């Protein structure tokens, strides 16, 4: 039975339970709702919760666990001898899964009877051809051990599903009956329902937190794994980045410094663009612009914030790069060799960050109390004196926070760098040289066909971890500054 149907059945049981629970509550109070402890619908909801929650919990756990259990039991069916020399158990298991899917497809399309799919022997029949006819992607001749395993796999999966359906429906009905049995006039249904709702919300929050912890842990474990294969001091202090993809290990040099340098150089160029423009436009919008100008200009800036970064990347590659090249390139000043350079990526990233800086600063400037401005005007200060000497100093901590948040975005930015800055990891001071960043290298380390257990691939986790620590530090510092100084003006 498909999972979708199963869900519908459980919901139907719950709906029926609601109606029964509600009317039973009313009849236990002789039809007078005032004699009930809670409103009648609480009794109904109590039944609904008891019918749904345990059933769905079991279903989720079962759906997660069944593949693991089936795989481990099927895997035992494959003898050592059936695994070719240049292969592994994992690869053979993948073939078993494909064969099982193929059998399913063949039965569904009428190419095989169910009986044939269950019992056929690969050495006597043309199973491989018939699977291919049914559209299954079977690479080589299906061998007898693989077919046996695939058949077993199908059977186990099918029984597992049937058992799950039975268990879930039974649990749902039992839950509903339990809820209905509880339903009496003096039963505190409201409290039970409120507690359940709280549990639900706590569960949601814990899932969010646990996911974050899981991501961090996986980063940490893989980073530790990387440092087992590659010395940490070479990673942190190495000045050369030249991974080798052909020979595994050995000849690779994986020093992070050129990447960090590229990251910071490009981010600094970006901030040099974004901070003055963003801050000045925020000052204009919040202090000078009439409400009509503001109502047009603010949404325009926010549109800029909604452009996907890949579009900025294209802009860097196709417009800004060639433009810079025509001025600073071999035909101009001769400082620049190609369109991809720190300058190209930095400028475009700066444009991307303008709305970020300006809308944050705008909020912060608006939060400076009007009484502060009045005080300054009341002493005969002009508008620009007031802004320079009173409003900006009061807003400064918030603005610093905004700039730190913007830099952590700049450091994490990928697409603009991939398209605008080039792929060469270099320690160089010339902003018209191609350089690359940590994020861009994470992409290139994982998109090649490197073995995921090699240091060349695992280094991506170490890079990710480094980046994570840096941006986390920046964000925490930014929040600290914003919090610390905000209290002063309230």
């Amino acid at each position: 039975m498909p999972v979708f149907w199963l869900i519908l059945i459980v919901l139907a049981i719950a709906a029926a339970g609601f109606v029964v629970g509600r009317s039973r509550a009313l009849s236990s109070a002789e039809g007078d709702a005032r004699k009930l402890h809670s409103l009648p619908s609480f009794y109904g909801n109590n039944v609904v919760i008891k019918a749904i929650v345990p059933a769905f919990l079991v279903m989720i756990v079962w759906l997660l666990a069944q593949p693991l259990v089936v795989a481990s039991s099927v895997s035992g069916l494959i003898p050592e001898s059936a695994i070719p020399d240049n292969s592994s158990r994992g690869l053979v298991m993948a073939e078993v899964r494909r064969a099982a899917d193929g059998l399913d497809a063949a039965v569904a399309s009428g190419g095989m009877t169910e009986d044939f799919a269950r019992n056929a022997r690969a050495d006597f029949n043309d199973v491989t051809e018939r699977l291919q006819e049914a559209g299954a992607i079977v690479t080589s001749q299906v061998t007898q051990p693989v077919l046996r395993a695939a058949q077993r796999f199908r059977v186990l999966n099918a029984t597992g599903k049937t058992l799950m359906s039975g268990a879930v429906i039974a649990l749902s009905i039992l839950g509903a009956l339990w809820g209905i049995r509880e339903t009496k006039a003096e039963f505190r249904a409201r409290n039970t329902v409120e507690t359940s709702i709280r549990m639900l919300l706590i569960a949601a929050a814990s899932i969010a937190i646990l996911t974050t912890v899981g991501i961090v842990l996986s980063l940490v474990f893989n980073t530790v794994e990387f440092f087992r294969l590659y010395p940490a001091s070479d990673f942190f202090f190495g000045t050369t980045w030249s991974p080798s993809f052909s020979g595994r290990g050995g000849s690779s040099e994986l020093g992070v410094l050129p990447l960090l340098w590229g990251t910071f150089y490009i981010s600094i160029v970006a901030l040099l663009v974004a901070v003055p423009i963003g801050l000045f436009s925020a000052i204009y919008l919040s202090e000078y612009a009439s409400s009509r100008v503001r109502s047009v200009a603010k949404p325009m800036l926010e549109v800029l914030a909604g452009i996907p970064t890949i579009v900025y990347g294209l802009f860097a590659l196709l417009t800004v790069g060639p433009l810079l090249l025509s001025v600073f390139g071999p035909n101009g000043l001769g400082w620049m060799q190609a369109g991809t350079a720190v300058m190209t990526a930095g400028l475009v990233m700066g444009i991307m960050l303008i709305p970020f800086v300006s809308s944050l600063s705008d909020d912060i400037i608006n939060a400076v109390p009007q009484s502060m401005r009045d005080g300054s005007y009341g002493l005969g200060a002009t508008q620009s004196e007031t802004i320079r000497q009173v409003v900006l100093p009061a807003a400064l901590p918030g603005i610093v926070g905004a700039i730190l948040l913007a830099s952590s975005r700049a450091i994490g930015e990928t697409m603009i760098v991939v398209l605008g800055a080039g792929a060469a990891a270099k320690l160089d001071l010339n902003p018209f040289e191609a350089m690359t960043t940590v994020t861009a290298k994470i992409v290139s380390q994982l998109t090649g066909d490197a073995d995921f257990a090699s240091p060349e691939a695992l280094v991506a986790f170490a890079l990710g971890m480094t980046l994570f620590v840096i941006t986390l530090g920046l964000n925490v510092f930014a929040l600290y500054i914003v919090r610390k100084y905000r209290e002063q003006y309230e």
Partner: protein
Amino acid sequence: MMKDNIDTKVGVDAMETKFNCRDVQVYYADNHAIKDVNVDILDKTVTAFIGPSGCGKSTFLRSLNRMNDTIPICRVEGDILLDGEDINDAKVDPVQLRAKVGMVFQKPNPFPKSIYDNIAYGPRIHGLARNKAELDEIVEKSLRRGAIWDEVKDRLDAPGTGLSGGQQQRLCIARAVATEPEVLLMDEPCSALDPIATAQVEELIDELKANYSVVIVTHSMQQAARVSQKTAFFHLGNLVEYDDTNEIFTNPRDQRTESYITGRIG
């Protein structure tokens, strides 16, 4: 005797008129907040504005130093003469006017700067000091006039926002005094203060009237009676009655004034 009467009248008239207001109207968009106000505000005198909330006291006060210019929807009509010169004239720079007509607000609003820089703010933007020594002198003199010098002289570099409410308000008064204004406008300067701080500020106002014309908006009848020589009663945007403070409180001419000071409206 007759002569005595004339003498006191001459005495009052001898006080120079600072503000001459004729037919002043103030509008917030369509809301006619101040209607036909005529009033003469005297030099070296404390004038109190009293009246129920929303009657336009703050609005009128703010039109005396053109603070209403900072509110886009606000419009002021009529003549407001300061020393015979129309302050709403195109020739008059509101920035210079506000240096002459200082203002203290309801809520203490020290700048997020050191105590020293708070006081030095006005003198610096108006270029009142030629060097650091002169500026130091202005700061000390202003803090003394604000009756707060003894409390802060050892921590002039501490932030002004770290002072207590009453100290902050006296700091703001000292700040306003530092630009050497001729008139000091105070909008409910004590409403955020405790009784002790209020007493300190009232004492200060009494001292200030030796040098300045002070206009104070207050909700407290006792305060108006204690600190002011002249009182103006506003009601629904009209100036109902304007007279010596004694007269207003002992012998009000208008029914509305009497009701307000005896607590029947407000």
